[in-house]
């Protein structure tokens, strides 16, 4: 531990000492796991807040862009309370260490020095549990406070519907700080008994990289912590936090005292990673509103979430706006309301019809040793709902949201907008919503689907895709099921958007026949091999096989390969390996990745072999299915 001398502020900065092994960490890798932009910040923080709602009730989010003059008394007080001079020394030291992180810090320091105002972004939630829990995780148990303030890759979320699961999202807050520093206050539902009714927990954390200062090496992270107990949070009266804008006394409109619990984050030296130069405050507010509307309209329309965005300049509120999805994603909002009200139709016939159809999501059985999700004994089809609002093709041309499908699961955040083309020009354009997991009202196997889809999401929670993580939870076949799911969605869209009164103008038959196979053969080659006196019998748990390969007279050498496969009830035959094979003529022979082979000279027209199969193929017992034996002869002329 390396505490600094006490200051006149709310605590003192304590920096983690460099590890004894001399290792240097040049930046928290979490910061690179999610995109650095305002949309990600809104998605990650709001998702975390929804996951922390008290008893699943409504959550209110407030984003406040705060600007204060650097020459003002307000800034002077804030600087003293946070001991910014001490923090600044460490930030400068860390920026000198080179690497990608150092360059980002240097740019941040430069931007701060050039600006006449100090910009902060405050993110508050109300109606959430607050960051409850002890200072540190104990044993295997973690808690929201430790997960957010101490640990990396710790999500501390265990509910099925949780939006987050990697614990990387919190990094989005630090990446939007030129100082890589965030202060927070939290008003927890369950506070230590000895504290007063209104005491609030306070701490600040700086996510710097390895650095040296005054001959002392530091690992990177530092905490503005309790003056008496280094690294620990402080419990303070709200009045102490007023100058930091973290007192939470001004509740947003619509939030009453019963919903006052929650957390306030203050991103110090805020910058928009997507903007060059000093942030344009108006644009920041616009982007925050748009991001909240575009990503959380299902939660807002379900009244599970309210989002407000305001802009404070030197203590004066210059803008205060409640996010209304109808202003930004009106078509999706209309489609979703129609779905929630049960007014969808099964066949769309005109513009503005909202069509609902079910799309099956195949879930493979879970592995016996997994404990991540609800066990699934047999493969099942979970029901998901595709909701499509038909629009006029021509009117839709100017709308960037046209022909997009919003993917939504339980936490009611839009995971992703998928672009899917509509059908022919004679068909409708559309706005689509794919509701899966617990977001699909009354759907069969919703919980299993929710758990599955949560595992398919990458750290940014912006896709449903196959990953190796799924292999440890579900038996093989998951990738194919996911592909089928999206193909089914695509096909359903094609059907739903087709106008019933227009037949397709079908093209010529000659071209339609391109996707047919008239028969097999080997045009022009004359290479032919057939089987004579073939015999196969079950011998224990394998097949004993023998046959004579007869080849047509040939001018070149031929490579002969006999092949075994198990004929299964559906799908391709499953290749079965040979465990041994013997040739009964004097031929050159060997084994490669495709199995045993021999080469016959032009004068040879038949060759006999006998062999024994393997006992299983892809887990199927060899003697429980029909056996297929065939043979390939390959002419040994290059570039035939």
């Amino acid at each position, binding site marked *: 531990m390396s505490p600094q001398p006490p200051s006149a502020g709310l605590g003192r900065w304590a920096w983690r000492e460099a590890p004894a092994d001399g290792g240097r960490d040049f930046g928290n890798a979490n910061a690179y796991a999610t995109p650095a932009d305002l949309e990600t910040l809104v998605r990650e923080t709001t998702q975390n807040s929804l996951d922390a709602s008290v008893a699943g009730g409504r959550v209110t989010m407030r984003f406040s862009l705060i600007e204060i003059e650097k020459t003002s008394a307000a800034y002077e007080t804030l600087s003293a309370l946070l001991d910014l001079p001490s923090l600044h020394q460490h930030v400068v030291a860390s920026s000198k260490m080179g690497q990608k992180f150092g360059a980002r810090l240097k740019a941040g320091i430069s931007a701060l020095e050039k600006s006449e105002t100090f910009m902060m972004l405050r993110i508050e939630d109300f109606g959430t549990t607050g960051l409850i829990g002890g200072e540190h995780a104990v044993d295997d148990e973690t808690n929201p406070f430790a997960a957010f303030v101490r640990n990396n890759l710790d999500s501390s979320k265990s509910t099925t519907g949780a939006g987050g699961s990697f614990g990387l999202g919190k990094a989005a807050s630090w990446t939007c700080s030129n100082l890589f520093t965030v202060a927070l206050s939290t008003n927890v539902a369950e506070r230590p008994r000895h504290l007063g009714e209104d005491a609030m927990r306070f701490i600040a954390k700086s996510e710097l990289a390895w650095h040296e200062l005054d001959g002392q090496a530091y690992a990177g992270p530092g905490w503005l912590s309790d003056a008496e107990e280094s690294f620990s949070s402080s419990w303070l009266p709200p009045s102490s936090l007023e100058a930091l804008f973290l007192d939470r006394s001004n509740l947003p409109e619509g939030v009453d005292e019963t919903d006052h619990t929650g957390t306030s984050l203050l991103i110090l030296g805020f910058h928009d990673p997507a903007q060059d130069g000093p942030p344009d405050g108006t644009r920041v507010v616009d982007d925050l509103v748009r991001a909240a509307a575009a990503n959380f309209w299902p939660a807002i329309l379900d009244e599970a979430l309210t989002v407000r965005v305001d802009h404070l300049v030197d203590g004066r509120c210059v803008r205060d706006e409640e996010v209304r999805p109808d202003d930004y994603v009106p078509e999706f909002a209309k489609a979703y309301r129609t779905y929630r009200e049960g007014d969808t139709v099964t066949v769309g016939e005109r513009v503005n019809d909202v069509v609902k159809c079910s799309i*099956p999501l195949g879930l493979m059985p879970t592995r016996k040793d997994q404990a991540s999700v609800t066990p699934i004994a047999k493969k099942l089809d979970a029901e998901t709902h595709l909701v499509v609002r038909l629009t006029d093709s*021509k009117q839709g041309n100017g709308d960037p949201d046209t022909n997009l499908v919003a993917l939504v699961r339980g936490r009611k955040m839009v995971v992703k907008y998928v672009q899917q083309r509509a059908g022919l020009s004679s068909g409708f354009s559309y706005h689509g919503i794919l509701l899966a997991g617990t977001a699909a009202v009354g759907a069969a196997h919703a919980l299993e689907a929710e758990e599955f889809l949560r595992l398919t999401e990458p750290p940014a929670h912006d896709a449903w895709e196959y990953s190796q993580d799924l292999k440890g939870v579900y038996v093989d076949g998951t990738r194919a099921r996911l592909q089928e799911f999206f193909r089914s969605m695509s*096909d359903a869209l094609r059907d739903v958007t087709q106008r019933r009164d227009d037949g397709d103008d*079908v093209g010529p038959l000659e071209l339609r026949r*391109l*996707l047919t196979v008239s028969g097999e053969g080997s045009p022009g*080659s004359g290479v032919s091999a057939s089987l004579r006196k073939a015999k196969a019998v079950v011998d224990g748990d394998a097949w004993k096989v023998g046959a004579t390969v007869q080849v047509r007279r040939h001018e070149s050498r031929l490579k002969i390969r006999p092949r075994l496969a198990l004929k299964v009830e559906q799908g391709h035959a499953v290749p079965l390996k040979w465990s041994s094979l013997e040739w009964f003529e004097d031929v050159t022979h060997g084994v490669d990745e495709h199995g045993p082979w021999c080469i016959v000279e032009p004068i040879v027209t038949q060759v006999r072999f006998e062999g024994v199969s393997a006992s299983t193929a892809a887990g199927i017992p060899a003697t429980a299915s*029909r056996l297929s034996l065939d043979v390939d002869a390959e002419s040994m002329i290059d570039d035939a």
Partner: protein
Amino acid sequence: MPKAQTFAPWHIVDDLHLNVTKFRNVDTNDPMPVVMTELGDGSVHRAYDLGRHSWNRVEIHVTLEFSHDQRRDVLPPGEDANAALKPLVSIRCSRTKLRLARTLEQASEQKWEGSFVLERDALLGVARIKPMIVRTKRRTRSGHRGFARELGAIVAEGPASDLRIDESASPFEGGLYVAWEDFATSNDPFRRAHPDLLYDVDVDWSEPRLMLNKAFDDVHVLLQDERPTSSVAKSTRAAILAHVGSAALGHLFHAAATDVFDDEESGERTVPDGWQEVVLRRLVPHLYPEHSSQHGRMNALFDDLSTPDGRRSLERRLASALQSDQLDAKVIRAIMVGAGS
């Protein structure tokens, strides 16, 4: 002489005959006059074109014959067929992964029958029904080698029948979705941005589509006329079809080759079941004529796809294969008719 042979691990009868006797629209209670096509003696011998009808639920009535002789072939002497065996119909839809089995009831000494209802929402493309007879109890007495012993063992089966659920899957329409539209007003941004193209091969759907540009009125009229009378029209039509067909097939081949994947379950390189398999099966005999078998050609293709040298060699083979498939001597003669040859 056979190129391939199949062996059963125990006595199996493989000539069960399933008769579909009736289709009924469950919601309207009307009989459905479904058109049937005989497909020959392969593993699927009939196709029923349900895609031409409007229905949400259809009831299908089937009958199955299982003769005394067939019973003797699959059961050891003294075992009671009624106690040991059960006839059933398996219903499979590969696109939706629907898998059902419906047991049949005995109607007479050698005949079984039954009905089952299918829901339109549970099916996509083609559903396949297949008769089979399975053991319903394990044979405990030893001896009589060669007869099935285990519970669930299939002892008799027969050719399947296809239920063509979607109109696009109709065997009468040909396999590829080909349609005309005016590219300038297309919903598809790519086609809208390229209004002067004659055609577009769109493989973004689960089934590919070949779109033809209706803005070329005269081409539209020419290609839609299957029996042009003038030699110039015949020649021009043949040339355009050969060109579009070659290019489209080439695009489809590349898209199908991209979809080749390593199957997790079997550990083998595999082609998806759908149109990709059809494209590759159509072209590999032209691509690898030095191989005598389909699996040898597919393995050669997989080998070529896995190395840069192989892919280069494959491109040359592809040019040759497309010519063989789309520009054979008959097509060239048809084109040359217009030149007075």
